[in-house]
C-alpha cells in the first residue's frame, strides 16, 4: 500500500509532536520526521501541514531574525494545539493497536 496515503491522516499529529519535542523550525521539523523513519516525506507535505495547523490556530509563530542566514520562523503549540496533540496521539495509539492486532497472522476473526 502507498505509505503516503497512510501517512496523510497522521501527519498533523506528527508535526505537532515534532514541534512539541523541540523542533520549532521548519527545517528541523522536516529533518526530524525524515530521521524518525519517514525518509521519503516531502517538504510540501510538511509545509502545507504547518500552514494548515497555523490557520487552525494549533500553532503560533514568531520570526527569529538571526544574525547568520535568513530569518527563521519559530513555531510553538498553542493550548489548542496541545489538546489536539493529546487527542491525536491517543486516537492513533488506539487505532494502530487495533490494526496491528487484526493484521497479525494468527489473529482470529470471530
Amino acid at each position, binding site marked *: 500500500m502507498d505509505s503516503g496515503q497512510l501517512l496523510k491522516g497522521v*501527519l498533523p499529529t506528527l508535526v505537532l509532536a515534532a514541534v512539541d519535542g523541540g523542533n520549532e523550525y521548519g527545517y528541523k521539523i522536516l529533518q526530524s520526521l525524515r530521521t524518525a523513519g519517514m525518509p521519503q516525506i516531502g517538504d510540501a507535505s510538511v509545509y502545507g501541514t504547518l500552514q494548515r495547523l497555523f*490557520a*487552525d490556530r494549533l500553532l503560533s509563530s514568531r520570526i527569529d531574525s538571526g544574525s547568520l542566514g*535568513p530569518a*527563521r520562523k519559530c513555531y510553538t503549540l498553542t493550548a489548542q494545539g496541545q489538546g489536539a496533540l493529546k487527542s491525536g496521539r491517543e486516537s492513533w495509539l488506539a487505532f494502530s493497536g487495533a490494526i496491528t492486532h487484526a493484521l497479525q497472522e494468527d489473529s482470529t476473526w470471530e
Partner: protein
Amino acid sequence: MGVTSDNAEARAAEYARGVERELSDLPTGLRNSLVADLAAHLSEVNAGGVPLIDELASPAEYAAELRSTIDVPQPRRASRDRKIMASALICLFAVALIALLVHSATGSSSQVPQPVPTSTAQAVITPDLAGFTVKSASLELQGVGLILGTVTEVRSDNVPDGKVFASTPKAGTKVSAGTAVGVVVSSGP
C-alpha cells in the same frame, strides 16, 4: 558555500513563483495562505542544512503534493484553463498594483493579512466557502484575514460528506478583520 546563499534565496523565490502559478486556479485567500511564506520557508529549510533547492522536483509536483496535503482538488485541465487563469491573474495583478499604489500614496503600510486581529481592524468580505473542505476553508479564511470559528456537522442528502455548505456570517457579509466565521459541513446522508 557562503557565496551561494543569495543565489539560493533567488532560486527559492523563483521556485515559489512557479508553485504559485500552478495554484492559480485556487481562490485568492487560499492561494495567499499557501504561498505567502513559501519562498522564506524554502530558503530557511535550505539554509538549515536540508539541501532542498537541489532536491526539489518541479513546481508542479510541489503544488500537487501541497493540494493533496490540504485536501484541495488537483486542477482539472491544463492548457485552456491555464490561459484563462493567466489573463485573470494579470488582471488581478494590475488591480493589486493599482491598489498598492493608491494605498502607498495615502501613506499607510499594509501587510499580508494575518489571522490575528490587528489594532486597526480592516473590513473584510466573507468568502463563499461552499464546496470547501474544513481544512481548505480554514486556509481560505486565513488568507483573507479571517479565522475559522465553530464547525457544525449536519446530515445532508445533497451535499457530499465533508463539504461546507453554509457559513455564519454568510458569504458576502462585511466584517472586521480577525472575525471568526463558523461553517456548517455535511456529514453525509
